């Protein structure tokens, strides 16, 4: 916001006048805030990660933002979850429960003895209405581990409220660490801070004048999901660590319809999503949805007016993910000049990368994983033609790396033999790995539609 410096002065003055109140509210609300540390185990390293979480209920459930864990990481790679209360260095252990597909949140459960020291966010009254424009909200930031995650106050005023597609407040200043709650002046729960948006700056240096750059504050955020969008979802604790069941439509390459196009097609004041690609055998295909269909409504409700246009695609995705496999989704579709209704019975999302079987071959320097349904989309083949394995990881400077192998390469043959299954490939690679007299082996690899021979030199 352009008025930022002025507003900040104003806010500081106001906060000064009311400091006693926030000071009173602060300690109790601090108990619903934690820092979470865990280890990510990869083929060649263990990497500690620190994120922030909010206490969701009295059973020690903690939610973390979706971005806290990279999507390709298997749950087995996430180790030693530890929960720290702000300003302490004594950790409590916690268990990872999985990711909710609709909110994207990751759920943890902290050990019993910590629970008495924590207060769920639901213990505080929720703001009855959405915050007014200009209303002051506040939240908590946490310093790094070397400062015992010391808490500090952050304040900001509501600059706008928009649908992305959830109701979201954009504030004039950073109000909380991403993943932590935001309160109003009365101490009511007003929202949950999301990851901050990028901000445009010009970079001046001795060599360059005014180079545009995008900066993102990763420790603090000025964006908050409103309480009414948070509270109904706190109970979406995954039943399985996989996060399943996950509803699946099977239409890909969704693109928002440009308003000018809507007008041209006499669909004024309607929003729509163009379908680019329907995967064979998917629920969308079975229901008769076609490429180039323009989806205009879900269950008879026209799409809301959302900006920027691409938010509409997120909205449609969420309409699917908030349902369960087996539910029916009625789509109103424009096909050419016709308008028709397509009833899709949602399926179960095919196996995801984080669920795929995988194996690391240390001497060769690569990890391969199963060929997944989604790989057939990337390689533009029919799902039934997906054989062999996909490269998941290539160790730097290893024989595989020297040979030019890259992650996401599709391995189709090894030593001239077609790899029909994951088991074929891992067996073959294990034999090569074990054979110390082997000088080299050859793989047939597809990348971006091109299939070529790669020779891997061992020793």
């Amino acid at each position, binding site marked *: 916001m352009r008025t930022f410096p002025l507003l900040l002065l104003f806010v500081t003055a106001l906060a000064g006048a009311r400091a006693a109140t926030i000071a009173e509210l602060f300690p109790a609300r601090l108990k619903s805030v934690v820092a979470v540390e865990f280890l990510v185990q990869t083929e060649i390293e263990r990497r500690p990660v620190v994120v922030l979480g909010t206490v969701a209920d009295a059973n020690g459930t903690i939610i973390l933002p979706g971005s806290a864990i990279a999507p390709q990481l298997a749950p087995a790679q996430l180790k030693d979850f530890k929960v720290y209360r702000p300003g302490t260095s004594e950790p409590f252990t916690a268990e990872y429960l999985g990711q909710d597909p609709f909110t994207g949140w990751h759920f943890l459960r902290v050990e019993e003895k910590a629970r008495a020291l924590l207060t769920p966010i639901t213990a505080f009254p929720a703001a009855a209405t959405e915050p007014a424009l200009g209303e002051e909200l506040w939240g908590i930031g946490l310093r790094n581990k070397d400062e015992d995650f010391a808490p500090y106050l952050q304040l900001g005023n509501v600059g706008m409220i928009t649908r992305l597609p959830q109701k979201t407040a954009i504030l004039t200043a950073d109000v909380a660490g991403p993943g932590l709650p935001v309160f109003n002046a009365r101490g009511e729960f007003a929202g949950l801070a999301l990851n901050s948006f990028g901000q445009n700056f010009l970079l001046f240096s001795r060599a360059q004048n005014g180079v545009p750059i995008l900066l993102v504050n990763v420790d603090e955020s000025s964006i908050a999901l409103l309480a009414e969008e948070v509270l109904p979802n706190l109970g979406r604790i995954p039943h399985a660590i996989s996060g399943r069941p996950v509803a699946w439509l099977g239409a890909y390459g969704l693109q928002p319809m440009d308003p000018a196009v809507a007008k041209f097609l006499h669909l004024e004041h309607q929003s729509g999503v163009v379908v680019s690609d329907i995967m064979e055998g998917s629920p969308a295909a079975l229901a008769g949805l076609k490429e180039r269909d323009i989806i205009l409504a879900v269950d008879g409700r026209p799409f809301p007016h959302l900006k920027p246009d691409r938010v509409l695609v997120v909205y449609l995705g969420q309409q699917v993910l908030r349902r369960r496999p087996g539910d029916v989704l009625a789509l109103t579709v424009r096909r050419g000049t016709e308008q028709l209704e397509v009833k899709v019975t949602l399926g179960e999302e095919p196996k995801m990368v984080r669920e795929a079987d995988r194996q690391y071959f240390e001497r060769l320097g690569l990890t391969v994983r199963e060929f997944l349904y989604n790989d057939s989309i990337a390689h533009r083949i029919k799902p039934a033609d997906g054989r062999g394995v996909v490269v998941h990881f290539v160790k730097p400077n290893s024989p595989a790396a020297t040979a030019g192998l890259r992650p996401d390469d599709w391995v189709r043959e090894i030593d001239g033999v077609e790899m029909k299954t994951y088991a074929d490939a891992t067996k073959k690679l294990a034999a090569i790995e074990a054979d110390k007299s082997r000088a080299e082996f050859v793989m047939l690899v597809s990348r971006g539609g091109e299939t070529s*021979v790669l020779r891997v030199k061992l020793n």
Partner: protein
Amino acid sequence: MRLLLAGLFFATLLPAASAAMSRGFNRLLNAVVRIDVREVTFDEGTKRLEAGVGSGVIISDDGLILTNAHVADPHAVEISVTLASLERVSARLVGWDHWTDLALIRLDLADVKKRGLSFTHAEFGDSDALYPGQTVYAVGTPHGLTRTVTRGIISNKSRYFEDSRGVRGYETGAFNTWLQTDAAINPGNSGGPLVTEDGLVIGINSRTYIGAENLGFAIPSRVARRVAAELVKQGRVTRSYIGLVPGFLRDLETFYSLASNTGMLINSVDPGSPAARAGLRASDILLALNGVKVDGRFPEQLPPIQNTIANLPVGSRVKLSVKRGAQLLDFTVVTEKLESRVGEEWAFESWGLTVRKVSRTYARENQLPDDTGVIVLGVQPGYPAAESGIARGDIITKAANTAITDLAELRKIYDAYTAHPEPLLIEAQRNRRISLYIFKP
């Protein structure tokens, strides 16, 4: 001591050689020209003119000049030649061949005659007879410095490199090897001759490693003479294509249980190409072409094999003998005409849109179902294309519900639009995502 002796040896030899070379070398100097080219580019949503400087060598008394394809190409609208006498004469393009980075232009002889100008033409030498270490000279216009002579030796006679975008985005290098020299070659030397001490043209200087020192490359005269003859005859070089991408076999003979110096690895097969349709696969070993054995052990052996295929008449049947695992198989492939990835380009000024036709090759490389569509090269801010949200790299597949199978189709729609401007529905794809746009007057 031995070094000194060697020096002495050359010192006694040199004067005799110099005397012999002066006549031939002078003749050569009089045949080298500077070429100034203005050409159209289609990069930013409109036609723009770009100027460049290169070199060339006159090879016939009817004014044919050999230069690089990256100096003079079909986008050139004005070619101006500066003769050794420093007189300027205009020229026009006879033909070009980006695969070998060669182009042929012809002086405006009527003008030459009218103004009473004269020139000499250079003689070709035999590039096959060169030896590493032989002294050679590069003549040309580096960085616009007209008539610069630099000296070096032949560093390597058959260097291989293929570059899929080497000549202004066009493919080059698949069908010939290159002479490598340490004679200084800089931007602007392009198209100038590499000559022996007696002034015989043994190469056309073409490229250098920017940032490296004394690594220059020239197209051998054997290739240049053949291509020039084709260009005079037909204005282009027609080649055959079957879709094999070769790899060298070095170190893999044992793996494939082959006798040494036999076979060429088929590294990949272009999807949808004649070879793919015939059933050839990556990792097959090509043993013989029409019964003639091939040897692709080293990279520099690959261009001659590719050239053998390219030289077959388009539409001819070629027998490929292949080893697959332990099997020996024969395939018959019908050749197609070789096409560049780069299609025809066009500017639609009122839309502020420049495009390039999707070629068969482009479609193959990008896994498009066919060659329908045009690629957006650029959009001009504030014009209908840019306003609609379409961007560089999008592929326009439909306009006004008509599939854009060729450029003429879109030109027709454009003409109708300029005659009666009305909102126009455009369908475009990017990474297989379909989007709709409206061009509004």
